């Protein structure tokens, strides 16, 4: 009775703590995923580890077996702590420009991603402008734009690299072009919607003031499209990262997260693959976060209702 009366207020205040309220749900999900991951690691690596023990003909206990599944050198599925350890080692264990440093590889991929994202955004907006302003262009461009996204990029990427290499483009630019090719699409679709978002009344108003098409674009269509632009940019920025990584796969690139993934799979270095994946996930969330931050800044500037 007394103890419950004493602990209740504390329990409640903890439950109502804003940080806890905010992060408790996501932390629960993460913990659950990690738990599932550990179980899966044990189950998947069991045969491998048992095979190892049996080959050496050493007796083993169940606990040794389980410990083995979590410390195998080339496991089918590395345990979370192995991935984290490898990740920390390759991020902090080497100088940032060393070929074994994940920071170095992330930087290479990031630069291709950012350039591709920039090119893709410009292309996407330009295409949307053309589509919105001309019925003919809409009819002639739109099918091709949609077709472009139906061809698997893994098939296209080597062709791009070869063709661009033949005209003397190598290194960063071909990767960026592949990344731009992937990421312009959501921006085009979003901006077509955005440029046609203005209310008919607002368009009529511009007409009563006999505004020029350019004024209608700059003072009405463009600001109306801003929310759609950011929705498109958020999708595009992750796609452009994927595009940059994919572009590194078929080219035998020596640097970049894609090269890390490829090398890892050649040599069965599953832990290396997973830590490269972790790096790309962190990179993607960082990029989305930046776009979100820009969006919030612009929204505040535009007086959007909080």
């Amino acid at each position: 009775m007394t103890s419950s009366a004493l602990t209740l207020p504390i329990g409640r205040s903890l439950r109502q703590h804003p940080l806890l309220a905010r992060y408790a749900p996501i932390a629960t999900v993460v913990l659950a995923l990690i738990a599932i991951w550990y179980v899966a690691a044990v189950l998947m690596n069991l045969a491998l580890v048992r095979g190892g023990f049996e080959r050496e003909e050493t007796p083993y206990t169940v606990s040794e077996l389980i410990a083995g599944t979590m410390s195998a050198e080339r496991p089918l599925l590395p345990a979370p702590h192995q991935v984290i350890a490898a990740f920390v080692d390759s991020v902090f264990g080497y100088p940032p420009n060393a070929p074994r440093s994940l920071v170095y590889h992330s930087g290479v991929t990031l630069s291709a991603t950012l350039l591709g994202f920039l090119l893709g955004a410009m292309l996407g907006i330009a295409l949307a402008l053309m589509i919105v302003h001309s019925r003919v262009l809409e009819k002639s461009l739109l099918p091709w734009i949609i077709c472009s996204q139906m061809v698997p990029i893994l098939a296209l990427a080597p062709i791009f690299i070869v063709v661009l290499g033949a005209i003397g483009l190598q290194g960063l630019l071909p990767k960026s072009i592949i990344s731009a090719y992937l990421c312009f699409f959501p921006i085009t679709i979003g901006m077509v919607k955005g440029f046609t978002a203005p209310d008919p009344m607002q368009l009529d108003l511009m007409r009563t003031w006999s505004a020029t098409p350019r004024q209608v674009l700059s003072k009405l269509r463009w600001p109306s499209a801003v929310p759609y632009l950011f929705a498109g940019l958020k999708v595009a920025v992750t796609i452009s990262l994927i595009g940059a990584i994919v572009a590194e796969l078929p080219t035998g690139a020596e640097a970049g997260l894609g090269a890390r993934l490829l090398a890892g799979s050649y040599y069965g270095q599953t832990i290396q693959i997973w830590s490269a994946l972790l790096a790309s996930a962190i990179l993607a969330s960082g990029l989305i976060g930046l776009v979100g931050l820009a969006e919030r800044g612009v929204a505040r500037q535009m007086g959007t209702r909080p």
Partner: protein
Amino acid sequence: MPLQMSKSLKLDSSGATLQPDGETPLVTVIEPAGMNKTADAKLEPVASPQRLAVDVSHVSLTFETADGKVDALSDVSLQIADGEFVSFIGPSGCGKTTMLRVIADLQQPTSGTLLVNGMSAEQARLGRRYGYVFQAPALFPWRTIEKNLKLPLEIMGFSDSEQRLRAARYLALVNLTGFERKFPWQLSGGMQQRVSIARALSFDPALLLMDEPFGALDEIVRDHLNEQLLQLWDKTGKTVLFVTHSIPEAVFLSTKIVVMSPRPGRIIDIIDCNFPRERTLEIRETPEFLKIAQRVRVGLRAGHSYDE
């Protein structure tokens, strides 16, 4: 350009001249209602006191729809003198909004001729001779109130200082000084509509076209804005064309009421309505007021507006 204009007060004790047959469209007798010597004389060389703000003759407009042709306007003729306040009343689909849109050159008539300020509707639009107020405020949500007011001025190329001056002047005119830095969502619906009226006036057009501007507002706000609009009209001397659903609103505001009926959209009756320019809501209780309201109702009924 001074906002205040001298206007001859026209007092008519009877309130209205009742015509026996409300069914046939009447050709209006144009009276020299507004003797504008100040503002418009500068814009227009025409000095005739009988100058027409809007001259519609035999205008028809047919829409092609999936279900066949719809006669939005059928052989409509109407003359509106400078400085008048004309209400268009009728049920939905009677073409009153279409009428306004045709005058504004937002829609083109199928046949007939139309003069606005003595020029074609397109010339009048290109010359920015009218301000248009829609049913909704249609403010640009990313612009502050002041910037919303400045928008037409920016488009028309007014200088920065002139823009600032006019924004302040017209915000004061609709009693919204102090709201310059607010965004539209921070204002009530009535305030937003006042901003849109100020915006329509900001470039000082001689003609104000209003399409059910208070339709979405509650009655208290609406009464208040009606009084304010009347004062505004008195102060600025604009010609106002005002579309409404409400009989009391039409009778209270207008010097002339155009009663319309649907299928096909046509004019049933034109009623003169000569209350003193300075009037209060109390006149709605007077016999003259009720008599005109009654005649509007008769006109609407004659046009089968109350049929199911």
